[in-house]
Structure formats: structure tokens, C-alpha cells
């Protein structure tokens, strides 16, 4: 029986969805190794403590809460120190979301604990002392099964790979003080430049509408944005060709060198389906492709394809989705 420590990522006073996914993965790992406890560390500005019970709902037995104004922004060194201190108490594994900040935190923690680390896992299997995990390497083109020796193992969990699952329990709460003053960070966050208000992140949106060069110009992304708005729960992505042209910001790029996403529904508009792009979206649950070229490789991975003029099809789809949503 071994306990699992989870970093419950937050932003401001909000829990991130990846925190619930990591707690869900932690619960499964603790159960697989003989029913240990899941301890979740929640660090944020004053007010974050109100989110602790939610972590219990998803399977945390104990929530370690640290409220400090210095955690309003990501305090990498202080969070790493606090997590490492706690991890030294003896855990089988420390789970972290493979998010932008989790990618920063995982290696810090592994170095501080001198612990083995595997990034971006999609599944694991544990039996006794043996732990193996699966991680997509070569930009999702090869699934690599890795054996991890030693405790604790630092594992970062791919967003959307584990679906948050209620395991309702009432978590005990323990209050922590920062191990290191978050005001003494050497890397100081000077500014957060917010994206558009209410904009869903590509990693978290259940629906993604992506545009490619077939849209012919940045102004035509309005079509894609309108379709996203009709869904209401959709984010807008783009291909590398499009971000290289500067039609969309680089952060919108989906593909091998950009974001790798697995939404419930991915609609590719005017995208031919270069390998570079497919590597970023082929694990989506349902894929729709709209393209004028019936030979485009995107149709090979699409569940549903529509061949024809995107300027005619997308507005028609937008109206139909709007109608369908009204019916709900």
C-alpha cells in the first residue's frame, strides 16, 4: 500500500480541469498499488481553500492547502520546494499535469528529489513494486512503454488522457505554510498577457475548430470563429502553415511542434492533413474534415468528410449547429 501525491494545478482562485484529471489518475494509481491514500497539494492565493472539497469529490483523501498572495502567479521555485518537501515524507509517486506549468515543475521536482521522471503519460500499470507507463513519443507517432524504477516516481499526466471521475469522499484538510517565500523567486512573473476573454484553451475545449490554408486569408477565420461560437464550447486552432504566415498567433498552432490535442470533436476546415498537423490531433475522439480536394490526406483520419467549398459548407454548418443547439 502506498500513497500518491498530486499537484492540483490552479490559476488564480480557480482549479484547472487538469487538476481533477491528475487526482483521478492518482486515485487509480493508489488503488492499483493496494489502496493507499491520495494527497493533493493545492497552492494559490487566499480563497483557493474553498476548492479543496472538489478535490475530495474526485478521490483525494487529504488536501494540503497553502494560501499565499505570492501564489497568484506561478511561483516555480516555491511550489517545487513545497512539493519536494512533502514528497520526501514517502510516496509511491507524485503526479503533475503535463500542462505549461507542469512541464516546468516536473523536472524541477525530479532533480530536487533525485527521482525518476516520465513526462506526458497516457496510462500506467502497477503491480507490487513494478511500475510501467505509456508515453507517446516521436510526436505521437510511437507509443513508448517505459519501466520506472524507484520511489517516488514523478509522472506528468497528459491533459484529457484521464477523464475526471467522481469517487466522492470528504477530504481531510491540512494547512501548509510555503517552504520557501514565494516572494523570493529568482524568476519573477512581471506580467500575464491574457488571451481573449472567455476564450477556451485548446487543451481543455471539448470541441476544436481548426483552419488551414484553404481559408485563403486571415480575414476568413471569421467563418471558423462563427462555427466555434455556434458550438459555444469550442476553441479555434490553426495549422503550422497558417501560424507561419502570421494569420493566427503561434500559440494557436495544432501539430507536432505546436499543441497536441484530443477533444471530443475536431473539425478541420480547409486543412489538407500534413503529417505535422495529424500528429497534433489524430487522437481526437471524432474528426470531421471539410476540404475541396477529395484526395486530401485529412480524409484518411476523418470519421466524417465533406468534400467541397469551405466558404459554402462552413456557414451552412454554423446555422445547422445553431439550430441544433436551440433544440436542446
Amino acid at each position, binding site marked *: 500500500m502506498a500513497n500518491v501525491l498530486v499537484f492540483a494545478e490552479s490559476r488564480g482562485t480557480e482549479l484547472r480541469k487538469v487538476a481533477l484529471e491528475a487526482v483521478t489518475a492518482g486515485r487509480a494509481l493508489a488503488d492499483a498499488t493496494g489502496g493507499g491514500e491520495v494527497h493533493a497539494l493545492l497552492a494559490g492565493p487566499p480563497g483557493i481553500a474553498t476548492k479543496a472539497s472538489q478535490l475530495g469529490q474526485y478521490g483525494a483523501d487529504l488536501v494540503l492547502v497553502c494560501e499565499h498572495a505570492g501564489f497568484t502567479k506561478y511561483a516555480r521555485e516555491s511550489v517545487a520546494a513545497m512539493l519536494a518537501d512533502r514528497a520526501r515524507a514517502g510516496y509511491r509517486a507524485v503526479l503533475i499535469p503535463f500542462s505549461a506549468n507542469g512541464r516546468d515543475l516536473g523536472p524541477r521536482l525530479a532533480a530536487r528529489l533525485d527521482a*525518476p521522471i516520465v513526462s506526458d503519460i497516457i496510462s500506467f500499470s502497477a503491480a507490487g513494486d513494478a511500475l510501467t507507463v505509456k*508515453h507517446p513519443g516521436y510526436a505521437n507517432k510511437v*507509443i513508448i*512503454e517505459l519501466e520506472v524504477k524507484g520511489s517516488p516516481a514523478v509522472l506528468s499526466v497528459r491533459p484529457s488522457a484521464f477523464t475526471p471521475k467522481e469517487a466522492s469522499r470528504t477530504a481531510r484538510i491540512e494547512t501548509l505554510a510555503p517552504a520557501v517565500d514565494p516572494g523570493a523567486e529568482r524568476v519573477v512573473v*512581471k506580467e500575464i498577457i491574457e488571451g481573449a476573454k472567455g476564450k477556451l484553451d485548446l487543451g481543455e475545449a471539448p470541441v476544436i475548430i481548426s483552419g488551414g490554408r484553404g481559408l485563403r486569408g486571415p480575414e476568413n477565420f471569421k467563418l471558423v470563429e462563427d462555427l466555434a461560437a455556434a458550438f459555444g464550447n469550442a476553441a479555434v486552432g490553426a495549422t503550422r502553415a497558417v501560424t507561419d504566415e502570421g494569420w493566427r498567433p503561434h500559440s494557436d498552432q495544432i501539430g507536432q*511542434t505546436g499543441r497536441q490535442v484530443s477533444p471530443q470533436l475536431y473539425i478541420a476546415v480547409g486543412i489538407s492533413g500534413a503529417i505535422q498537423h495529424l500528429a497534433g490531433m489524430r487522437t481526437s475522439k471524432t474528426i470531421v474534415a471539410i476540404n475541396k480536394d477529395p484526395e486530401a490526406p485529412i480524409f484518411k483520419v476523418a470519421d466524417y468528410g465533406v468534400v467541397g467549398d469551405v466558404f459554402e459548407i462552413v456557414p451552412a454548418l454554423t446555422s445547422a449547429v445553431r439550430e441544433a443547439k436551440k433544440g436542446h
Partner: protein
Amino acid sequence: MKIAVCIKRTPDSESRFKIAGGGTAIDEAGLKFDMDDFAGYAVEVALQLNEKQGPGETVAIAVGPDNVQETLRKAMSMGAERAVHLKVDAMPFDGLATAKALAAELKTGGFDLILFGKYAFDTSAGVVGTATAELLGVPGVTAVSKLDIANGRGTARREIEGAGEVVEFPLPAVVTIDEGIARPRYPSLKGIMAAKKKPLETKPAQLGPVRVTVKKMELPPDRPPGRIVGQGAAAVPELVRLLQNEAKVL
């Protein structure tokens, strides 16, 4: 500035991969290997910083078997002054083991700035750079899309989900480089000739213990074949019906 750039040799990311006989590695036959894409951006950033800021030195460093020397020569043909090859028989998958070898080399190097790609294509893990920062006890900034250095301090921008984060930090520091920051230059003929004469030092890598090992590699399952719903806007009602009733995503 004295800048170290830690680079890796990886297969061309546009390749189609096959799994080798033992099932624990990719089949390297017919694959083209080169400097990893993100490492290429890091080399370019280092060269531009030193070009802009006057006298400096860019040193390319790599852990790898002998074939990584070709990648180090490429960095020198782009403009790095010298290179260090930390030799291993085979690259471990364990990023912390590699970070320990690099930290052992870097700690006495007197570098102002140490750059890495944000991750390497093959392992797609992004461990080595930030772990090296921790092992060296210097500030580390992960996956930056913009970097300025002035008066012994760095300012960097990194993308976090849905927002950009601007950070400031003192040097020496480790920074890992994202795509889009700079286009790597092509080595000129003159650069390639000059690189042949630049110093490349080889020494054994002091790897840490390897605790993460590959048990199996496999290709992801193919997606089941899809279908063309129809042509033009006339296909939209059927598409919507399928999304509602079959895929149940609308």
C-alpha cells in the same frame, strides 16, 4: 556572453516510423538524422544574442554516441565557436540521467546563459533542460517564445494555456526555447569549411543512474476508416445528424 547550447540528434520528424525487431526501438534504417528542431532554434538564438551583443562565445554541447559529432559540427558550421561531445554508447531515455552528465560539464564552464530546445522530438519529454537548471542551482525558464538579455538579466515570454507570461530573471540561467522564436540559419559553405577546423572535444559522459527504460515501442492503432458524408452544403444535414446520433458530440 558565454553561451552554451545543449543539442540533440534526432530523426527527421516528418518520417514514417517502423518498430525495430526487438520491439524496443524504432527501425533506424533509411531514416535521416539531424539536429533536433528545437535545438536548432536554441542555436540560432545563441548566435543572434552574441552577434547583437558583441564579443562572446557560443559552445555547442551534446550527449550521445559518436554520430552526435556530426550534429555538433553542424552547430559549428552555423557559427558556434567550439563543441563538447559527452560520449555515451547509447542515449538513455532517462532525462535526469542525461541532465546529470550535462550539469557535471556545465558547472565549471562559466557560462552566462545555457540554452536548450523545449524538448527533443524523439523522447518528447522536455526534462533535461529544466532539470539541468535545478542541478546547477540557477534560475530556469521553460519553453520561451521571446528572449531579451540586458545588463545581466533576462526577460522572456512563455505561453501558458490561454495567456502569455512575461518573466524576468538574473543570469546565469538556463532557458529552454520554443518554436517561432527565430528561424535557424542554413550553414554557409564557408561556415561548413570553417567548422571542420573548429575544436571539438570528446570526453566520457558522467550519466546519472538510468531508472527509466524502454520496455516496448509500438505504433499507435490506426483510426478506423471514416467515410465521405457528401459533397458541398447539401451534406450538412446528414453531417449534423451523424454528429448528433452516431458520434453523440452535438
